[in-house]
Every structure is written in structure tokens, then in C-alpha cells.
């Protein structure tokens, strides 16, 4: 307890000195003021919890991941997506995997029925076992947008530059438009970092640099996705000589040039973390089983699943939780390849197969870890956007709202949360009017990323004040806990 206060005090003093160094520049001043606010952080050491963001990079076609199969829904789906030809992106209804949520969905369309993409069998198993839930039509919003008319109303705020990869990715990752370089994973890390003995293992990415994990006071640790920790050679002896100045040179954070200082700081963090990480990785090298291969649905051959391998690395760090003295961790794992403008039928089938295989592997392996971590770890999906409901012949274009999975023992599974949108494209010819369709079946989200994320943050242990700080727009929404977590 005493130690913690000391740490905070040191940190406070450090920030005050940063503040005075920042001098008269106004923006950094504000930045640091905020950083000082976060000094009132939660320390949660009674238990362990981890959030794992499985990011489907490029924009997942969730309309072919979770499908509405009741008669009117299916007719709308066929109209929009079936070309009748070999390249048609419409999935055959007979191939789909039915799912039945515990709470029936009856809405303006009627009694809805649902199914999953044919290559999601392991996900269907997780859903049926109550270990997976679906959250419907999630996307970046600043405030609720009821329908197309509201969308066209300039008085209602909308996220900037909708449907662009870079912008919608940034909106999913950051959720606070005033701080686009920081992500909600990283800012949750800022809040709870004092829960961890080794704070540099609070936010961990297995997929390079992510905005999601960028904190204002805490840096994401970018682990190599195969989990190896390698030391920098030549630190003491170098090319036949002793007294190597290598470490002094590469960690010289006293340089006057800002780029040099920042580069040296990354190297210093790398050196600091390397020994700790090595201890964990050595200890877990054999105890956490590696994923099996999956069957590529296009070739019917066994193949390695890179996504599952990344989750293997995450599982090893979770097993090393006690070694690292970690009580709250946020992970980021990226799956690429979802920008299916073309060749969607084969491309998306393989992605779905790998997604389900990776998720099932991870859920299974967590149960084998000491103390069964499967109730303490929640995996959730995110993506740039959902895609157009219309087809461009053999693919789809950038959309807005999309469906997502939340998986783990703490999830109130076998449910679909939120309103499931009408599966039809507005068509003046047929008189069909989908109130959420802003063109080509791009759907106005009915759940904001803030609501989705805020629900996870609450389970993770953030206080209401901390949640409001990380998700300033959450207050614009009437429901702030979607109820999918225990």
C-alpha cells in the first residue's frame, strides 16, 4: 500500500516537471492536465481479468457472418446479394448453421430466426454452450442516430469521414474524438496500471502498433507474435572487445532531438521488458498447448492458423500473470484480410474458418491454465466497419454498423444483444424502405462502440468516473451497460 502511494507521488512529481517543461504551449498543457487527472487510478489486485480485442482488419462483412433467416429477412438478403451467378456472394441457406438465442427476437420484421456462416461451426458450439454472445449492429457514433432522416439532420453529430478505413478504424480504436491517437484499451490501461507490478505489461499487442492500446501514460508492449523474447547482442562484449558502449548509445534519452529521445525511450523499454518476458516465455513454452491446424475450406487441407498462433502467445502471457504480478491486462490481436472488395466467397470463408478455430482454441486453452482463466478473460471482436449489404459482383464495399462476438466464461452467452437490423436495401422500385440504410445497405449503427466498450470496461473493473473519462460520448446514450457481461 505504502509502495503504491510512493509510486503515485513520484509519478505526480514527474508529471509536474513535464508540465513546467511544456511551458506555454497550450495543447500539451491540456494534455498533461488530463494525465494528472488519471493519477486517481483504480488498483485492482484481488483478482485477475483480461480483455482481448480480436480485430478483423479491413472491415468484416458481418452480414455474411450472422444472418437473419426468417422469410422476410431472407428475401431481402437474396434480393441484395444474389447475382444468380457463380460469383454470387449470397450464401446458400442450406449451408448455414442455425442458432437460437435464449431470448426470442420479435420485432417489426416479425419473429426473427438466425444462423451463422457455414464455416463458423466452432463458434456455433460456443454460442450454444452459452460461452459466446452476439452484439448486433455496432459502430462508431457520437450520439444516437435514429434513422435516415436523423442522419441527414446536420444538428445531429456524426463521426467524421464515415466509410473510410483509416477514419473508422481510428474511431473504433479511440472512441474519444478529441484524442484520436489514444485508444480505449490503452486509456483503460492508464486507469488500472497500478494493479500490475510490472506496468509495462498492462497493454500488450501481438500485432504491432495499435491505436487501441495507446495510452496517455502507459505504452503498449508490442510482443512478437511468436512470443519469442530476444536480447540485443553486443551489450557487454562486441566484436572481440569489452566495455561496449552500445547500451549507453542506444538508450541515450538525454539527446536534444525529440526523435532521438523518443527512439531511445522505445529501446529502453524493450531492454527493461526483455528479461521479464523471457522468464514468462521460458516458463510457458511447453505448458500452454499450441493450436492445432485448421481446415482451409477452399482447399480442404490442414493449414496453420496465424490468428490462433497469436492467441497462443496471449495465452502464454496470461499463464505468466503471477510471474509478472499482473492483475489487469488488455491485449490486441489483429487478423488482416477482411477488406473483401472482391473474391469474397472464398476469401471470407477462409477468414470465418480461422476466426472460429482461433476463438474456440483460445476458449479451450484458457480452461487448462492454472486456476482456469476462462472466466477471467473475455475476448471480443472489433473491425473497421460492417460492409455494404449490396454486392459489387464478387464482393462488398465499406459500410458502417456490424455485428460482433463476445466470448468467454463471464459472457452471458447464447443471446443476441441489440436490435437486429432489417436485412434489406432501400429500393424505390420495390417500395422497400430500410430506415437504417444510408445507401447500398450501409447501416446506421444502433449500438455505439462506446456502449459496447463501456460494458466491457465495467466488467473489467473501471469505476463509473473512469468509464466516463475514457468514453466521454457514452453519456449521450440512454443505455450504458448492454448487459452481456456477468
Amino acid at each position, binding site marked *: 500500500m505504502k509502495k503504491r502511494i510512493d509510486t503515485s507521488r513520484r509519478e505526480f512529481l514527474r508529471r509536474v516537471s513535464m508540465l513546467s517543461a*511544456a511551458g506555454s*504551449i497550450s495543447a500539451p498543457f491540456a494534455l498533461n492536465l488530463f494525465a494528472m487527472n488519471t493519477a486517481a487510478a483504480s488498483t485492482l489486485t484481488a483478482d485477475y481479468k483480461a480483455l482481448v480485442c480480436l480485430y478483423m482488419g479491413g472491415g468484416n462483412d458481418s452480414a455474411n457472418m450472422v444472418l437473419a433467416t426468417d422469410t422476410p429477412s431472407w428475401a431481402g438478403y437474396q434480393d441484395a446479394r444474389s447475382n444468380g451467378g457463380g460469383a454470387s456472394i449470397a450464401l446458400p441457406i442450406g449451408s448455414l448453421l442455425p442458432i437460437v438465442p435464449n431470448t426470442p427476437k420479435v420485432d417489426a420484421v416479425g419473429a426473427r430466426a438466425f444462423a451463422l456462416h457455414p464455416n463458423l461451426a466452432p463458434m456455433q458450439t460456443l454460442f450454444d454452450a452459452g460461452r459466446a454472445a452476439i452484439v448486433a449492429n455496432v459502430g462508431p457514433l457520437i450520439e444516437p442516430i435514429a434513422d435516415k432522416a436523423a442522419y441527414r439532420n446536420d444538428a445531429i453529430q456524426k463521426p*467524421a*469521414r464515415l*466509410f*473510410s478505413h*483509416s477514419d473508422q478504424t481510428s474511431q473504433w480504436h479511440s472512441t474519444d474524438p478529441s484524442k484520436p*491517437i489514444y485508444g480505449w484499451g490503452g486509456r483503460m490501461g492508464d486507469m488500472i496500471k497500478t494493479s500490475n507490478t510490472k506496468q509495462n505489461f498492462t497493454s500488450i499487442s501481438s500485432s*504491432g502498433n495499435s*491505436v487501441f492500446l495507446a495510452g496517455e501514460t502507459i*505504452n503498449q*508492449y*508490442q*510482443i*512478437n507474435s511468436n512470443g*519469442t523474447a*530476444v536480447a*540485443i547482442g*553486443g551489450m557487454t562484449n*562486441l*566484436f*572481440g*572487445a*569489452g*566495455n561496449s*558502449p552500445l547500451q549507453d*548509445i*542506444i538508450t*541515450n534519452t538525454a*539527446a*536534444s*532531438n*525529440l*526523435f*532521438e*529521445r*523518443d*527512439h*531511445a*525511450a*522505445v*529501446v529502453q523499454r*524493450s531492454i527493461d521488458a*526483455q528479461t521479464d518476458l523471457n522468464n514468462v516465455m521460458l516458463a510457458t513454452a511447453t505448458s500452454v498447448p499450441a493450436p492445432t491446424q485448421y481446415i482451409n475450406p477452399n482447399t480442404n487441407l490442414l493449414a496453420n492458423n496465424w490468428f490462433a498462433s497469436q492467441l497462443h502467445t496471449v495465452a502464454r502471457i496470461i499463464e505468466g500473470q503471477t510471474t509478472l504480478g499482473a492483475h489487469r491486462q488488455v491485449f490486441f490481436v489483429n487478423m*488482416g484480410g477482411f477488406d473483401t*472488395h*472482391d473474391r469474397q466467397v472464398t476469401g471470407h470463408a477462409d477468414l470465418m474458418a480461422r476466426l472460429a478455430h482461433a476463438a474456440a482454441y483460445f476458449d479451450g486453452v484458457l480452461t487448462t491454465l492454472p486456476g482456469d482463466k476462462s472466466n477471467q478473460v473475455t475476448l471480443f471482436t472489433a473491425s473497421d466497419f460492417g460492409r455494404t449489404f*449490396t*454486392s*459489387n*459482383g*464478387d*464482393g462488398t*464495399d*465499406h459500410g458502417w454498423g456490424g455485428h460482433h462476438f463476445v466470448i468467454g466464461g463471464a459472457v452471458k452467452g447464447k443471446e443476441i444483444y441489440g436490435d437486429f437490423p432489417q436485412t434489406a*436495401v432501400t*429500393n424505390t422500385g420495390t417500395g422497400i424502405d430500410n430506415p437504417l440504410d444510408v*445507401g*447500398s445497405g*450501409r447501416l446506421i449503427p444502433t449500438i455505439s462502440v462506446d456502449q459496447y466498450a463501456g460494458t466491457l470496461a465495467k466488467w473489467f473493473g473501471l469505476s463509473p468516473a473512469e468509464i466516463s473519462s475514457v468514453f466521454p460520448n457514452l453519456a449521450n446514450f440512454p443505455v450504458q451497460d448492454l448487459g452481456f457481461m456477468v
Partner: protein
Amino acid sequence: MMRTLHSQSARIIGKIALFTALLTACSGEEVTTITTDTVQPTPEQASRILSQATFGPNAAEINKLTNIGISTWFNEQFSKPQKLHFSYINLAQASLPAGSRLREDQFFESFWQQVVNGDDQLRQRAAFALSQIFVISFQNNTLTDNPRGVAAYYDMLGTYAFRNFRELLEAVTLHPMMGNYLSSLRNQKTVGARVPDENYAREIMQLFTIGLKELNQDGTDTTVPPTETYTNDDIKGLAKVFTGWSWAGPDTSSTRFFGGDPDPNRDWLPMKNYPAYHETLEKTFLGVTIPPNTSAEVSLKIALDALFNHPNVGPFIGQQLIQRLVTSNPSPAYVSRVAAKFADNGQGIRGDMKAVIQTVLLDPEAITPQPANNGSGKLREPVIRLANWMRAFNVSSSSGRFEMGDLDNPLDELAQTPMRSPTVFNFYRPDYVPPNSNIATANLVSPEMYLTEETSVVGYLNFMRNAISRGAGVSRNIKADYTAELALADTPEKLMDRINLLLMQGQMSATLRGQILAMINSNPNNSMINRVYLAIFLTMASPEYIVQK
């Protein structure tokens, strides 16, 4: 010492101003001949220009540039015949064992052998910069299977680097590798509920021409908050222009449109239009309306002209070229000088790429060493660091092939391979701000910091330590020739002078120099070659080297 540098800078700035004036007076679209040469750079200044305009200085080129002067050197570079990667790939293909296919590795071989041996360095460096704006990537499966097509695309960037931006834009748009990468190839007109693919229409605006926000000519936003340059309706309208295009070939059959009956040269010939699949409806975007039933070729011309003439293009592309070659945070005045040259090369011609590239590289902010005590400079990207070593120390590949393979792995390689960007958004975004950093606090950007993380910094150091002493490449047959450095190894001060000039343009601090010399001098019995390795590796490991200022 400081005073000398200052007076040298003042002198060269004066001369550059004169030189720029002369350049403006003589430049035309295709011929940018400079006949008067008044600038005789010092070796440090020559090294600086070569570090920005080529894949890196070496002693011979520094000597040459100091002797012939800047303008003659640029003229020579502009008139050098282009060395084609396409030719290398064709030769490689001819020598493949029966039954084996070309791989992306053959492109990497060609890339690195030109880094080292190509005498058209300015063109090659410009092409590399353009390859990070007009991105296609071997990470796309179709492109993996078409290494010759990717080589041809890269050559095309090199060709048009010295022509006009409007031509460059059209060549990019119609290249079949771009067509595959951004799915404009085989894109079809509206039929029933099916709508044209919007991928290329979106990215040509967002990434290749005008960007998302309206810009002043100095690169700053016109309004706060920024004014968006286009809406999704503009994308839908423009997408119609990019319908009906597919592989080249002798006819416009449906079979050929969908990829059958392949022409042997379809991997590099410009895409052609198949009228049956081209949109016949009206096409409306960015205030332009193309009437119904307008041909694909006419529609394309109208669309590309409209994009090319948008006022954003000069500052948007100019700023990115500056970031790739010179500095991450150019002053608004620097951007506006480049944008002005883009708008008018002095002869009333818009989009003259030679004039733009010269303006980027000869601007006072490029040519003058920047004070170290601020946010000046940029991180040299990993590929450029490796290239710097190869050129400074005259590497050769004993097989003659420079088998480098991909360098993606951040753990033991460089986290960057030419033409293997993860997405169309390049290895890093031009506006990337590293969180929780001094750069962020100073409101600056550092695109290359995106690749700088706990793993990749280890990978770079270990990779270079091995390359410097044992050679680089898949069989470590890419080895340096340290003859000149070995000759100086028993006079460590002179050895450091040379390495400072070759790798750091004479900007090494006394502290770093002292650290390296202290290690050499404290191990007097170490071999001469180990001294050379130490001096080069510790220099290349230093943040001072990694940040070009």
C-alpha cells in the same frame, strides 16, 4: 566549429537561391536542363544531398558531387537511362529451372542490386518514395503470383517520376497490378441490385490525389474543423468511371474480361476497357457530371483531369514526398514552395514531377543541416538504413544476385520490405503521432515511428550487427568491402571521420564519437577489422544516425 558550419550554410543557401532562380528560368515539362552551375558543395553537404536523393552516399559519389556541383549532378541523374527491374525479372525467368515459377524474391534481388549498382539513383529513390504513396503490395495473393507485373509497376513509377503527375496518375490507374490490388480490374457496371466496386474510387481520392481534407497550399487545413473533400456520393459516382476495365488482350470477350484466355503480357500492359461492362448511367462526382453513355476512355480522362486539377494535389503529394525524402515536419513555407512548383513549373505547366522533386530536395530546409535541439528531421526507415550500409561500404553479392528475401520479421529482420506494405495505407501513415512521446507533446508527427517498437528495435540492431560483420542476405553472400576503412583502422580518429561523413553527413556529436573511440582505444589489441565493425555498428545503432536531420 559551429561558426564554420553556419557560414558554410549561409554560403550554400545563397547559392541555392541563385540556383533555384536559374532552374525556374530554364525548366520545361520534359527538359529541365540546367547549364550554369555555381554550387560546389563540401563533402558533408554532398553526403547530405546524397542521403536524401539516393539510397545513400558513398565515397565515389561524394567526390563526384563535390567536383561537378549540384546542378550538373541533378542533370546527369535526370538524363540517365532507366534501368528496368522488368529486364532483370525476364532474365531471371529465363534461367529458372523447368517447372519453377518466378517469386517475389526475384523482385527483391532486382531491388537490392539496383540499390547498390544502379547509377540512376535519383530515379530509384523517387520510385521508392512513390511506391509508398501509390501502394500495391506483394501481401496480396494475386500480386504474389505476378512478380513480373509488380516489377513493371515499380518501373512505371520510376518512369513517371520524371514526367508529369497527370500521366503518372493514369499509368497507376490502368496498371493491371493496381487493378488487382484495389479490385478495379473486372469491376462491372450497375445491374439490378449490384453496384460498382468503390475501392479504387475511394482510394484514388483519399490516398493518391486529394486526401480527405481541404488544404491550403501550405498543407494546413483550410478550416477548423477541416472541410471534407468528398462525400460517399462522390465515391459512388466516381466508381462508375472505373467499370469495364480488365486485362489487356486482342479482343473484348467476356472470357478475357473475367480472366480467361490470358495474354502473355497482360501482367504489365495497361488495362483495357470492355464496353459491355462499362457503366452507361450518368456519373457524378466532385461537381463533375459525365453524361449517360459516355465511353470509358472519355470518362476516365474527365475524371483524372478533375482530380489532377484539384488544388489539394500539390500540397497533399508534395508534403508526402518531403516526408519520404527529407523531414517529417516540413514548415508550411516549405510545403507551399513545393506546391507552387507543382501548380506551375515556371513554364505554366502543372504536375512537372522533375521540377517538384528538385524543389523538394533543394529547398533550404532540405539542404541545410537542421539544428539538433528540436523536432527536426525524420527517422531513416529500416530499408533505407540497410541501403545506406550497402552503398557506403560498396557491398557485392558473390552470386551476383543479392538474394535478400523478405525482411518483414521485426524480431530478427527489419519490419519492412520494399513492396510488402501490409495495406494500401503504406507501412505508416503520414500523420502518425507516437502516443505518450516527446513528439506528441510538441504536436509533431513521425510516420516511421510506427515501425519502431520493442521488438523491431532489437531486430534492427541484431540484423545490422550480423550484416556488418558476416554479410547480409539469405546465404550471407552480400558482403561489404572495407578496404578503405581498414586502411584507416590504426588511426581511429580518421576512421571515425570517414564513417561520420559516409553515414552521418558529418553530423556526429562529440559525445558519440568519444564513446566509440573510447571503446576502440580501450581494446588496443583488438583486430583492425573488428575496429571497423565496431565503428560502423555503433554508429548505425545510434539514435543520432537513425534520425536524419
